[in-house]
């Protein structure tokens, strides 16, 4: 067998996507299952993004067990399943702008700033144009972010693998948890609490001893808490409860939703693109930079992108141009480019370090763990001359991202603009059905009633966390990383001959630990706005 170089791996990754098992043949051209699944994921993502109350996370939670039932637990399932999830992630970001522009109702939280200029444009009869600006900006930002991911992730992984040993990796994981806890919600203390609860939950019923620790001797706890039950419970079911409560408390609106009729030129001209492009560029850089930090959400990126764009627009705008907040296309561009460019960059810590930075990344890790054969982290990017199948999968994932972007560029906009009617689906019917569907999906994957009980219980916990203003994301990331932190720490402890100061002996590990402490205490100094 010939030695494999970097280009060979890239090519193998592309082939794995396009020459995988055939789904169907179109005009004599074979379409692989992975390509089909990316397209399905994108379509579903746009639909759920455009439906207020739903979102990419719910779609991923429901789809994952179905996909695993279809594709099974073998490495051939990785690219179709993860490609689908990537499609959902990208589609939901684009779709979130539809109700934001047409009905002043953001489909996803990060689309809130889009309402500020999108809805005034729609009211002025420029709804289609606003949707086109939003789509163009969103996909441009996303593409930029993916390019940064593809270039940076392998280098970062190689650096980590070259310079970090077990104590440093343990310290890096602790730093990541501290950072996520500090930045993800308005309070570092609440972030840390959420993280601590996630760690505690994952340590129940696990460990190396014969007796499953912290299980009270009960059978239900002795096998540990299923990761999907905890993640879906806290993230999805908790959010459904929150949404249901909002509906319960609202005086039900009975009036028809009014839509302004489109008037005048709705096309996106080259002159429009030139006008909005500087705003897209700035916001894409802001979103990508923010997205590369684990735990920092797209809503913060959208807010900073919008604020930066507004400052520049105020100085540079022509007198006849609308201000930000009064229907300026630049406002939509600044917001959408920023929130969309977070999604690709968010995968940098996942693929290079194995540290999930957002909820979509959590589901990618869940998929990889459920299926097996791919462990996101620095070991993936070993460019060995003998075939490293994980590296082929990694380049396959990059290919699915590019493919999803191409589909988004070509058909995503058309599809997105046809989804305005989704906002009319009554949430009071949709959400209970989604709750049951989520529980059924969970059961299909876990085949255990205790998983349903756990998920429901964690849903209640997620609801209370929300009411206390505690973000569930550090909980989930603590749960996902808890096992790895323990394993790495155990190995590091043994490897250093039982040195209790193993985290402080190497300068790099000590720096990481000091940074972890510093980031928590610095964040204590002033309360922040919620940025999840």
């Amino acid at each position: 067998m010939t030695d494999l170089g970097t280009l060979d791996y890239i090519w193998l990754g592309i082939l794995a996507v396009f020459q995988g098992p055939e789904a169907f043949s179109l005009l004599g051209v074979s379409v692989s299952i992975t390509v089909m699944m990316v397209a399905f994921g994108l379509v579903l993502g746009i639909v759920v993004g455009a439906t207020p109350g739903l979102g990419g996370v719910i779609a991923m939670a429901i789809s994952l067990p179905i996909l695993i039932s279809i594709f099974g637990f073998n490495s051939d399932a990785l690219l179709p399943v993860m490609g689908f999830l990537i499609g959902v992630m990208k589609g939901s970001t684009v779709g979130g702008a539809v109700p934001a522009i047409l009905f002043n109702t953001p489909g996803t939280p990060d689309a809130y700033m889009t309402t500020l200029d999108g809805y005034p444009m729609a009211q002025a009869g420029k709804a289609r144009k606003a949707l086109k600006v939003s789509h163009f900006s969103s996909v441009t930002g996303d593409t930029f972010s993916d390019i940064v991911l593809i270039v940076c992730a392998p280098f970062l992984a190689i650096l980590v693998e070259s310079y970090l040993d077990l104590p440093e990796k343990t310290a890096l994981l602790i730093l990541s948890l501290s950072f996520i806890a500090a930045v993800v919600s308005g309070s570092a203390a609440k972030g840390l609490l959420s993280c601590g609860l996630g760690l505690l939950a994952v340590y129940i019923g696990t460990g190396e001893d014969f007796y499953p620790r912290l299980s009270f001797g009960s059978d239900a706890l002795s096998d540990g808490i299923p990761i999907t039950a905890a993640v879906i419970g806290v993230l999805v079911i908790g959010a459904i409860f929150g949404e249901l409560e909002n509906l319960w408390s609202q005086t039900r609106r009975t009036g028809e939703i009014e839509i302004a009729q489109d008037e005048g030129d709705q096309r996106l001209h080259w002159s429009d693109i030139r006008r909005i492009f500087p705003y897209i560029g700035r916001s894409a850089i802001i979103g990508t930079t923010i997205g590369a930090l684990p735990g920092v959400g797209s809503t913060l990126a959208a807010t900073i992108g919008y604020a930066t764009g507004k400052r520049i627009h105020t100085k540079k705008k022509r007198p006849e141009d609308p201000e930000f907040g009064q229907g300026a296309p630049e406002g939509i561009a600044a917001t959408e480019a920023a929130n969309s460019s977070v999604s690709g960059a968010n995968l940098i810590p996942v693929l290079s370090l194995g540290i999930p930075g957002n909820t979509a990344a959590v589901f990618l890790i869940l998929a990889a763990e459920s299926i097996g054969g791919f462990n996101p982290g620095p070991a993936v990017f070993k460019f060995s001359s003998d075939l490293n199948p994980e590296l082929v999968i990694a380049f396959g994932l990059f290919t699915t991202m590019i493919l999803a972007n191409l589909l988004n560029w070509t058909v995503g906009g058309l599809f997105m603009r046809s989804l305005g009617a989704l906002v009319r689906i009554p949430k009071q019917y949709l959400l209970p059905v989604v709750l049951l569907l989520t529980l059924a999906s969970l059961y299909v994957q876990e085949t255990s009633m205790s998983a349903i009980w756990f998920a429901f219980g964690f849903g209640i916990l997620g609801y209370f966390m929300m009411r206390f203003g505690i973000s569930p994301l550090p909980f989930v990331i603590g749960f996902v990383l808890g096992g790895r932190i323990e394993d790495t720490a155990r190995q590091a402890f043994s490897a250093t001959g039982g040195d209790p100061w193993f985290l402080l002996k190497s300068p790099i590990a000590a720096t990481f630990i000091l940074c972890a402490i510093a980031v928590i205490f610095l964040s204590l100094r002033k309360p922040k706005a919620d940025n999840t």
Partner: protein
Amino acid sequence: MRKLSASTALGVGCIAFALILAFIWIPLDTETWLVERKRGRYIAGDSLAPTLAAGFILIAGVMLLFERQTLDLHPTRYNLAFIGAISIFGIVGILLMRWTGPIAASLFGADEYRLLRDTAPWKYIGFVIGGGTMVFCIVSFVEQRVTWRALWIALVAVVVIIALYDLPFDDVLLPPNGDV
């Protein structure tokens, strides 16, 4: 007397929980200590990682006492009433899902439920009644009225979910049929 803020109460609760965890639950419910000596070598025991989690919760509790909060968020009575009702609907729905099939089989079936759990209509009874009840009750509660529409939506939802999972896949079992 000054009113206790929600953050302070949460902080005190976290500190108490972390101390109980570290000094009662972990020592009594774990086999090995923080560090163990095995075959002449020191290894990390099973208590170490949960103690780290307790440490996180403890630090969070202390920080909550000192952190400046712009909003003192906490659940209100209204929130508790809502989540209480939803919990009841959920628990009733899950219990019906688990037990109506076996009860129906014991009353009307030729065999015990375990042998009928992959046979229609037995395998659907629990999911239809439990899932349907859950959806119907939640819709009715949120709408604050009971309607036929809510009932139809609940029934259509369970039928669609059955069609989604049970019909295409031979090896997929709906709740509770996988572990009865």
